[in-house]
Every structure is written in C-alpha cells, then in structure tokens.
C-alpha cells in the first residue's frame, strides 16, 4: 500500500474529522477525535490490510501519519 492510500485509509477510521484535515504530515495525536478507540481501529485495519501487527506502543511512538506508515512498512 502506498503512503497516499494509507493516509486515506487512516482518515477513514475517523467519523467526525474531515478527511481533508488528515495528511501524511498530520500529527494525529493532536486531532480532537483521536482516542484509544480510533487507535484500535487503526491496529485492526493495519492487520487486515497489511497482514501485519502493530501495537499501541507503535501508535504512541509515531508522531505523524507518515511515521506510522514507516513503522508498518519496516515490520
């Protein structure tokens, strides 16, 4: 999955945040809607779409959406 597609999928996990607000450089922890529930959605979609497991610690360690993408790709 390319970075652009990942950003779209990542944004899709949010209900109230406009997808246009989320880009590769978005610091997602700062988004008002970001929560542990959204984090779990991301973990689940990464498992389904990438076949890879990431942890809440990975979610915590990454600052931007692109950081997270890199963590996944390196797994």
């Amino acid at each position: 999955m390319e970075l652009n597609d990942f950003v779209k999928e990542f944004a899709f996990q949010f209900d109230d945040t406009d997808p246009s607000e989320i880009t590769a450089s978005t610091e997602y922890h700062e988004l008002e809607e970001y929560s542990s529930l959204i984090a779990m959605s991301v973990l689940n979609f990464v498992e389904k779409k990438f076949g890879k497991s990431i942890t809440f610690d990975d979610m915590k360690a990454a600052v931007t959406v692109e950081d997270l993408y890199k963590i996944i790709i390196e797994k």
Partner: protein
Amino acid sequence: MTMKGPFIIDGKSILVTGAASGIGKATALLCAQMGAQVAITDLNGEQLEATFDSLEGDGHQMVVANLTNNDDLQRLIDALPKLDGVVCNAGIIKTILAQFAEKSDIERILNINTIAPIYLTKLLLENKKIKKEASIVYTSSMGGVYNGAIGNGLYGSSKAALVGFVKSLALEVAPRGIRVNTVHPGITETNIYNNTSITPEQLEQEKAHYPLKRFGKPEEIANAIVFLLSDASKWMTGSQLLIDGGCSLI
C-alpha cells in the same frame, strides 16, 4: 489426628485441556499435587511435555491434540480412562473491533473457545467417559459475562456461550449426580496476551482498575477449579464462580 475435610481430589481421574500453560498448567499441577491422576492435553506438544514432566505422582497421561480436529478428538477420547473430573480450559483471545471482524475471525474464536469444549463434552458423554458424580468445569471469563471491553466482543461472546451451555447441561446430567460449573477469571497472568496488540504497558495501566491492584495468578484460578472438582462443592451445579480481584465491581 487432622481431619481430611471435603477439599480433596485424591484418587480422582481428571482431564485438563489447555494444560501446556497458564491456568490449565496450574490446574494440572495442583490436581497431581493433591493426589489425582491427570490426563492433560494441548496443541503445543513441547510445553505440554514440560507440564507432564512437572506432575507429581504416577498414573498421569498426556495427549497432544488439536481439539478442533475430529481425528485428534477421537484419539483423545480413546486414550482416556473414565473420568471423575473434566476441566475444559483451552482457549484463545482476540482483540478486534466488531466492524473489523471477518467471518473467519468469528469462526476461529468460536471454534476454539466454544464449539471445541461443547463437542468434547458431547463425545465424553457419548462414550461413557464421565463417571456418576463427576464434576465438569469450564473456564469462561469475566469478560462477556460480567463486563465488556472495547474489542472484546468475539472473545466475550465465545466465553458467554459456555454459560448458556452449562445451564442446560447441568440439568441433563443432574440425574447422574454429575455437576457442571464455570469459572470466570479476570485478567490472569498467563501468556494468552502474548500475541495480541495489547502491550505490557497497557496491562500495567489496566491493573490499576483492579481493587486488589493486581491481576490473578494461574494458581489462584486453579484453586477455584479444584474446589469445583472436589466434594467441597458437592451442591453446586450450573453455577458461575467469579474470580476477578473485584474488577467487575466498578
């Protein structure tokens, strides 16, 4: 002279599934320590052997088996003596939000946590492997029965289903004096969380929610299971024994 009391299982023949680790292993070890003859089974042969080697006393047996495989089940049934106790404990955990649960995810957890113990029970009864006055114990969970947690729907439903099964089974086997109960552990320090997205740090945070400020130990759940296997619980059937350090109170 000291009184032996009703909390005894010596001489009883007891099957424990999922005995390679965690609650199953602790239960098998305690049963053997208390003088029971234990038949242990698990998918993981290497770890099962380690449990087997640690069992005190003689007359024990081990069968490596995948309880979702019919051939393995038949091999297990054929190898077993008549039983005074059965502990259906083998299980897995899967943390996943409902919207991501593929049919294959749902089927996998229900196959292992629900269908396998129910079908094993059917085969044990059909093959007359369960003695009169025996005790059957299922490891259910706090989750799904006493509380919910985000991402725990599949696991919770697989464990809650056992409660429904036990209520009717208890009636079916009561004429033979056979008792059937469930234990409901809160989070217990086992390796069941090793392959989940739950991190050790998160587990530490979770611990703070427990009034007794710690998770359960496999040995503590084993104590409750052995109580249900023993004559001390002779008038208990169809019951749910919650052991959760007070977690579900708040």
